[in-house]
């Protein structure tokens, strides 16, 4: 389906036009506001058969520690996560964060504030799940990706700080239109 052209004043819209624009490229699914001093946030029921690829947006989260976020899928509870990323403390040389076998991904850097965007593919399908991310905080920036060999279907995920707690900000999930 092609992207529609802009409407003009007074134009009558057809149902085909409206349906096309409702079914946009990225569709909002859910969001949560992070509470005060939480050690983990579960976002449930955000993955389904409606989409195969998703975007997770974490914005404005204040963390007590300068460290990495951890993210695990509801259906993959073992050491099936692998990842690699490059990160910078601002003004310093590049460093790496990588693992071939872990119980979570490390898809973002924590600080005050913290933010990251992560594209995740096939979490609901009975298939390997992959992801790419970029992230920044008040002191670091990081980019990388990962893989999960557990093909169990997941309907949600848990976000955890590697150390300390999280306060405020939002976690939002969007789905990529299939066709």
């Amino acid at each position: 389906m092609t992207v529609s052209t802009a409407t003009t004043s007074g134009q009558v819209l057809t149902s085909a036009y409206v349906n096309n624009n409702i079914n946009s490229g990225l569709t909002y699914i859910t969001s949560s506001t992070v509470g005060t001093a939480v050690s983990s946030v579960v976002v449930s029921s955000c993955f389904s058969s409606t989409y195969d690829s998703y975007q997770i947006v974490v914005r404005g989260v204040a963390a007590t520690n300068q460290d990495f976020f951890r993210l695990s899928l509801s259906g993959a509870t073992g050491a099936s996560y692998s990842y690699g990323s490059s990160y910078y403390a601002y003004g310093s040389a590049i460093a790496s964060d990588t693992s071939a076998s872990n119980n979570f991904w490390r898809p973002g850097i924590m600080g005050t504030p913290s933010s990251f965007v992560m594209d995740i593919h096939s979490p609901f399908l009975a298939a390997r799940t992959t992801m790419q991310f970029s992230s920044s905080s008040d002191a670091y920036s990081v980019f990388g990706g990962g893989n999960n060999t557990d093909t169990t279907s997941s309907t949600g995920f848990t976000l955890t700080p590697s150390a300390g707690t999280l306060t405020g900000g939002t976690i939002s999930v969007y789905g990529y239109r299939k066709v």
Partner: protein
Amino acid sequence: MTYEEAVAMYPHDAVFIQVDDLVRPMTPAEYEAFIQQQVDAVPLA
């Protein structure tokens, strides 16, 4: 960070778990795992 330092920094009644928009206290087992995570944490380079 030692176990005692972690407990002093994060008292049981001051840390929580969130499921969607519901924030709740930690169970004793969850709190113990959280404190151990603080003890095991390696600061970023």
